[in-house]
């Protein structure tokens, strides 16, 4: 898991170290685009743009989908997935804390009942 996230992180940094690729991300942030669109916009050959998109795709920053002869690129969902996963882990941590808290509260309640009875006696 750690290895995996470190590789992911390295891939992200490598992907972001290039000005064209950062530009592509910015562009995709505004709207989805085909590789041809991107190649034109960045004054590049199709092959060159395909390479850049490949690097971004491998880093999980971009996803592509081929419909017919057109490959459309969009921003990756990785960030959202990580957020969802983090929230679930956090929820589980609190759920198990609260399960323990339940036990403490039950014990205090019992104790209070006994003490209350003692006072009445």
């Amino acid at each position, binding site marked *: 898991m750690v290895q995996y996230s470190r590789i992911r992180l390295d891939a992200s940094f490598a992907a972001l170290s290039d000005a064209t690729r950062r530009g592509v991300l910015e562009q995709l942030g505004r709207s989805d685009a085909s590789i041809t669109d991107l190649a034109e916009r960045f004054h590049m050959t199709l092959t060159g743009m395909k390479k850049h998109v490949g690097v971004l795709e491998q880093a999980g920053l971009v996803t592509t989908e081929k419909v017919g002869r057109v490959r459309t690129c969009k921003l990756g969902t990785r960030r959202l997935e990580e957020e969802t996963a983090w929230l679930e882990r956090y929820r589980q941590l609190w759920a198990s804390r609260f399960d323990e808290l339940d036990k403490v509260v039950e014990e205090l309640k019992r104790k*209070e009942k006994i003490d209350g009875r003692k006072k009445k006696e």
Partner: protein
Amino acid sequence: MDARRKNEPAPTENRTTVERKSERELIVTRTINGPARIVFEAFTRPELLKRWWAPKSSGVSLLSCEADVRVGGKYRFVFGHDASKTMAFYGRYIEVTPYSRLVWTNEEGDEGGAVTTVTFEEEAGRTLLVMHDLYPSKEALDAVLAGMEAGMRETFEQLDELVVSLGASSGR
């Protein structure tokens, strides 16, 4: 035993919810089967806090737990496996309203950490707990959610495992 069970109301499952309420806010809620007075006690007496704040499933234990629960009072929780590798969480209480509200700062981070507000709302002998974390900026909460912290923790855990396995093999 079975007969008694039939007469008891079906145990309602108290679900824990977590929600990012806004760019800077995170909310955790849970209902506890007990009056606010008792739940508040479990939050404010260190010897009780110690019993539930580090559940076994979290994989770490609470090595020490100090909490001076009054306005301006400090708290310090130290987590870890042993004294050589620990992680401390600390801050101050900025509001203490018995049985209804607790506010504390989280100061262990590099920049300003979140401010945690816990409210205790009692209804029919049960208490709704709402824990609200307000982060200083969107970026601060984004960083937490991006798993920066969790990643670090996992790294430490793996190091620990490595140390343990090295120790075990050299002991043979």
